[in-house]
């Protein structure tokens, strides 16, 4: 139990929920203990292979075999998976030594397997940055990190303590243009890219490495959603939900990285709590239908979760969103239809860091749309 947290052995979890700086496994264990105290039934080693609209699902494990159960409510918290070498355009052979940073992380942190000795990292996502430090600590040499965008996609703290601390260079606006080696990776070539993200001739650099780790984005796991008729959002990649975290299929809820990719586990927990509470209310028959207020990403915003708010009295709504670029000195405006409801000043906003704004539920009940926008000052 604990999901991805069990392999994230670094600290930085729980600052909001526990006001403490915990490692991933510690954060997970606190919740596992809570679950055990509450006497909840659970199954490990069990994979759900099917989910249907009527909330029946099938799971399998070596002891019980395949089991079909129907939930009065179902919450989807399947987490996310990493974009793979195949999904980005990696040109060249397919030698050993190319894998996602998260895969290397599980090899290293769970069983002490070092997948390479001279390492380059493509993509500046958090997992990649954290692996740069971990591999260095365990005796590998990390030669650099290349990031296609002119800004990092990982948290600033991770650049400081995972790269700067070990003098590992970060090449912004760079990408790997070729991998060389047929059995084992022998070297890679990187180049600077222009504004269209096209490699600029003459800027190539070669690094002799045996390993290339990829940290080029995460995608919600939507393995089970299609069968159940759950609608997905094109930008988040996860289900479309309302402020109760309910999907378009009644009684099926979603939260966490399976809904949209988070950088803070604390917010995952908050979402999970809210989805759990809604599911409980659904089972009690306490959830009633209502008209929907849609939430819209305006200028500078990639997406807003939840995608809808129900027109009924409820808890305050936490809007989670990401910006599409690096912004300095801006205001975030929340519009109720076309009327400005709330405005917040921000010194810096970056796509790597999810933002959250809380809005009082009664303030928007008479709206038909809520829009969040970045205003450059």
């Amino acid at each position, binding site marked *: 139990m604990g999901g991805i947290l069990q392999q994230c052995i670094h600290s930085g979890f729980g600052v909001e929920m526990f006001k403490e700086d915990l490692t991933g496994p510690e954060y997970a264990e606190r919740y596992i203990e809570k679950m055990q105290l509450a006497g909840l039934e659970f199954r490990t080693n069990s994979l759900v292979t099917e989910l249907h609209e009527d909330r029946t699902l099938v799971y399998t494990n070596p002891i019980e075999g395949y089991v079909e159960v129907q939930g009065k409510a179902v919450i989807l918290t399947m987490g996310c998976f990493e974009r793979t070498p195949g999904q980005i355009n990696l040109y060249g052979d397919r030698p050993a030594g190319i894998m996602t940073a998260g895969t290397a992380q599980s090899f290293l942190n769970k069983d002490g397997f070092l997948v390479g000795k001279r390492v380059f990292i493509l993509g500046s996502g958090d997992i990649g940055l954290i692996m740069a430090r971990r591999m260095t600590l365990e005796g590998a040499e990390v030669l650099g990190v290349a990031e296609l965008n002119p800004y990092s996609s990982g948290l600033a703290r991770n650049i400081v303590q995972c790269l700067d601390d070990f003098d590992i260079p970060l090449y912004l606006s760079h990408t790997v243009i070729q991998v060389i080696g047929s059995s084992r990776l022998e070297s890679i070539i990187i180049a600077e890219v222009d504004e269209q993200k096209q490699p600029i001739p003459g800027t190539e650099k070669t690094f002799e490495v045996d390993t290339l780790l990829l940290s080029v984005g995460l995608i919600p796991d939507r393995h089970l959603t*299609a069968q159940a008729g759950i609608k997905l959002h094109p930008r988040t990649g996860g289900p479309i939900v309302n402020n109760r975290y309910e999907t378009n299929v009644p009684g099926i809820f979603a939260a966490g990285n399976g809904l949209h990719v988070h950088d803070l586990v604390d917010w995952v927990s908050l979402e999970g709590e809210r989805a759990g509470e809604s599911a409980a209310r659904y089972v009690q028959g306490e959830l009633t239908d209502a008209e929907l207020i849609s939430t819209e990403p305006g200028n500078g915003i990639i997406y807003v979760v939840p995608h809808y708010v129900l027109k009924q009295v409820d808890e305050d709504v936490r809007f989670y969103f990401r910006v599409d670029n690096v912004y300095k000195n801006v205001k975030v405006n929340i519009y109720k239809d076309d009327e400005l409801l709330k405005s917040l000043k921000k010194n810096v906003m970056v796509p790597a860091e999810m933002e959250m704004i809380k809005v009082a539920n009664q303030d928007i009940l008479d709206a038909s749309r809520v829009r969040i926008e970045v205003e450059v000052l």
Partner: protein
Amino acid sequence: MYDVIIIGSGVVGALHARELSKYPLSILVLEKNNDVSMEATLANSAVVHSGHDPKPGSLKAKFNLLGNRMYRQLSKELHVPLLECGGLVVATSPEEEQVLDGLFERAGVNGLLENEYQMLTREEALILEPNLSDQVSKAMSLPTTAVTFPWEMAIAGLENAINNGAQLLMNHEVTDITRSEHGFVVHAGGDVFEAKAIINSAGAYSAHISEMLHPKFFTITPRRGEYFVTDNRFPIVQTVVYPAPGKKGKGILATPMVHGNTLLGPTSNFVDFDAQHQTTPEGLNEVRNNITKTIKHVPFDKIIRSFAGSRPTADAGDFIIEETSPGFVNLGGIESPGLTAAPAIAKYVVEELVIPRFSVLPKSDFDPIRKKRVKMHELTINERNEHIKDNAKYGHIVCRCETVTEADLDAIHRPVRARSHGRDQTAYRAGAGRCQGAFCSLEVLKILSRELNIDPIDVEYKPRSFVLAAKTKGAQ
């Protein structure tokens, strides 16, 4: 002393081994890699072509049609999936319509029966394949076109041959062949073997093998093809869609795979031997730009992988199928439609060229059936649970994208042993799904290490390359 040594374990070598195992002969297959079928047979379009387009009168034309007609029976006997999806060659301009008319005529000359090729209007074609582009004006339907699972076909053929008495040695690269009193002496992987006859099915390296014994009489140049593979939950086409053929062969196809993925490609470019498996920006852009000519909706965001494979193209352009000196059969330039033609070539070579030397009759106890493997996803929940009762490993799913169970990984212990981590992607399809092994590769590594009884550090990825570099904390 073996009766026959087969060099190379691609689909051609594999099906020759199987065909030979019908006779009371001692057979040895030598493969240079640490796994079978890792070359041309691993990276191709998987299409069982109808035989409509090779040059009339060529060996390609002859064996393509014969091979196509053998595939259904063969797939059944070996329990290899066959997608009988048919094919469409489409025209998108008046010039291409003319090319199509020419192709229609050629199909007839090549011996396709009347119901095996038909000209269709756009409307008729759309019924067979709704995702044709707006430019498609006319199409030729090829209902006998099918799609196989190429390396599974090779592995199944070899397994069946081994069950019928053949032997296989991997990690045995043939480095020299000399003549002896009784036949041939073959040096491979540090060992020396003798054989009365040799079948050279070394694919791209067949010319090299031939030259160990003969003066050079053909050259092989790798002709690379690059592809995209899309997620199997979003099929793009339901039938093989060919563009009207041009100078560069059959062109960029959209091909439905037996596991639901769609293949987009291949390109066609002559390359050096060491660039055979390399993808390039130019090649993949060519695929991107050309595929939309024939296909309307191409979800490029559903691509999970790209790869390249190379056709062993001979300078003469046709297959070389010849006993070039007594007891030595050269199979050169077996490029497309080689996969389709392989069973027919094997039947011809064995019956016409090899068996006459030995004057033996077929064995009475040859078993053509390769046992069907349990496919959990085809079973009901109750049936699955019966299997799990027998073997709990069927309840343990290792690869969640492709629902590969721990029991499926028994390929490690099958006659054609899978020993490498890279191979799990092909043999068991663990890691072949959308996460490309991110979730399961640690577990697969541990299972391989346990089952092969070797240290995780020694688990190979590809020939001569390993998954791991070291263990931490000074552990040995």
